């Protein structure tokens, strides 16, 4: 994990960290969960167009990975996590400036290849041994949520693989190598026609609540505040909704 932090450090150094406190100008380093990729890239474009003096640098990774990077001292200004658990651990370590805010809510959805060759209809299919199904690994928020969903539905899955991150899981579904997997609704939206989504009933679904927070060691505090304000603003919320999130 410290290796990843080191890599992040070098990348950011290379990108040129300038800007002191007291101004929004300069670089703003935002580490966000992988599932926020498409939404936050649009967020970056919009934000930079109205804040021309700020250069937003986005770092996407699993929330747990970002957590470790922060612990190892990586220079992050804003952290957007895919689950409160990782954010809480960062908070407990005293790394946050103020409290986190829930800015987006994601739900889980079943993803299948576009032609749905295995004829998946719902969660119970995950118990069928003859199918090839996958989940995210335990410890990865996507994986934990998926397991809770299955638990709520009373299904014991016959999993064939626990992928290290949701993008890998999605890739295998897109290729047709897996018959089904449980990913975020936003992932299905972002994947367009490359996967087909099958809704999970609200009753058994889980709310994945996404918190965002400013780091105590942020080098660009003004910029960070500006960014978080933008994320929770109308403009930010509409971007999020467009990508499949709900907002609180």
């Amino acid at each position, binding site marked *: 994990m410290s290796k990843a932090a080191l890599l992040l450090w070098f990348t950011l150094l290379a990108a040129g960290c300038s800007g002191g406190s007291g101004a929004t100008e300069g670089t703003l380093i935002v580490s966000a969960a992988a599932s926020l990729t498409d939404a936050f890239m649009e967020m970056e474009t919009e934000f930079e167009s109205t804040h021309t003096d700020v250069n937003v640098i986005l770092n996407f990774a*699993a929330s747990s*990975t970002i957590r470790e990077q922060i612990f190892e001292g990586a220079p992050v200004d804003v952290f957007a996590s895919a689950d409160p658990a990782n954010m809480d651990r960062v908070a407990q370590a005293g790394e946050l400036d103020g409290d986190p805010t829930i800015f987006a809510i994601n739900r889980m959805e079943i993803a299948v290849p576009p032609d749905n060759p295995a004829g998946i209809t719902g969660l119970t299919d995950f118990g069928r041994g003859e199918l*090839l199904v996958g989940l995210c690994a335990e*410890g990865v928020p996507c994986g934990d949520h998926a397991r809770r969903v299955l638990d709520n539905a009373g299904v014991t899955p016959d*999993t064939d693989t*626990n*992928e*290290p991150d949701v993008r890998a899981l999605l890739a295998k579904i897109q*290729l*047709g190598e897996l018959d089904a997997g449980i990913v975020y609704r936003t992932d299905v939206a972002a994947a367009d026609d490359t996967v087909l989504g099958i809704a999970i009933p609200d009753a058994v679904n889980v709310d994945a609540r996404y918190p965002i927070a400013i780091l105590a060691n942020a080098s660009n505090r003004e910029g960070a505040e500006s960014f978080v304000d933008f994320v929770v603003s109308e403009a930010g919320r509409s971007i999020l909704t467009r990508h499949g999130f709900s907002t609180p």
Partner: protein
Amino acid sequence: MLIVLAAIGLAFFVVPLVGLVGEVPWSELPVLLTSEVALDALRLSVIASLSATLISLVVGVPLAYALARVEFPGRGLVRGLVLLPLVLPPVVGGAALLFALGRRGLFGEPLYEATGLVLPFSIWGVIIATTFVSMPFLVITVEGALRSMDTRFEGAATTLGAGRWSVLKRVTLPLIGPSLVSGLILTWARAFGEFGATVTFAGSLQGSTQTLPLAVFIGLEANRDLAIAMSLLMVLVALVVLIVLRDRWWRAL
């Protein structure tokens, strides 16, 4: 000056090791290492790495022989292909295997349709991915040895009545023996540590495809102590193998 540089070189290897050892939860170590996760991972790693080494031996030596001794058109290209897994990022290699041998793959689909055999998500997938990345080491080592050996010995053997197979068995292979052994060690070592191609092609499931490297990676999220314990296990296995084969290793190189 030489000593200073050598010491820096050594530091590259020692420092991370010390970092790892420093994090080991010594008191829980026995419990962690005898857990199902660890034992399953160890079993799979041993099976996969030994299988990959064996396959590399059986298939790689003839390939090396062809590259070293037979002049056929496109030989340079073939050698380039054999070296490709060394250059490609392992994940790219795994993706390529998926495109070729996955259930919807170029060759995998007809295979699946004909026999119902699915290679990903099985130990076979792990073995294939592992062999893919490690066999080049054996081929290159053996080809080098065959090229640099004095081929006049083979001529002398034929004047003594030995036919082609006899020459191969009684003269050529024994003469490249040390290099063959060092090639096998390198191959096994690469196979044992393989991660990217395996996780991309075979996926990761405890007891079925989750080798030690995969278990460590995923464990770093969920159970850090277990991950560190398994890392230590890998280091220990590697050290034991390399120390036991120490003499051969140096003589061969």
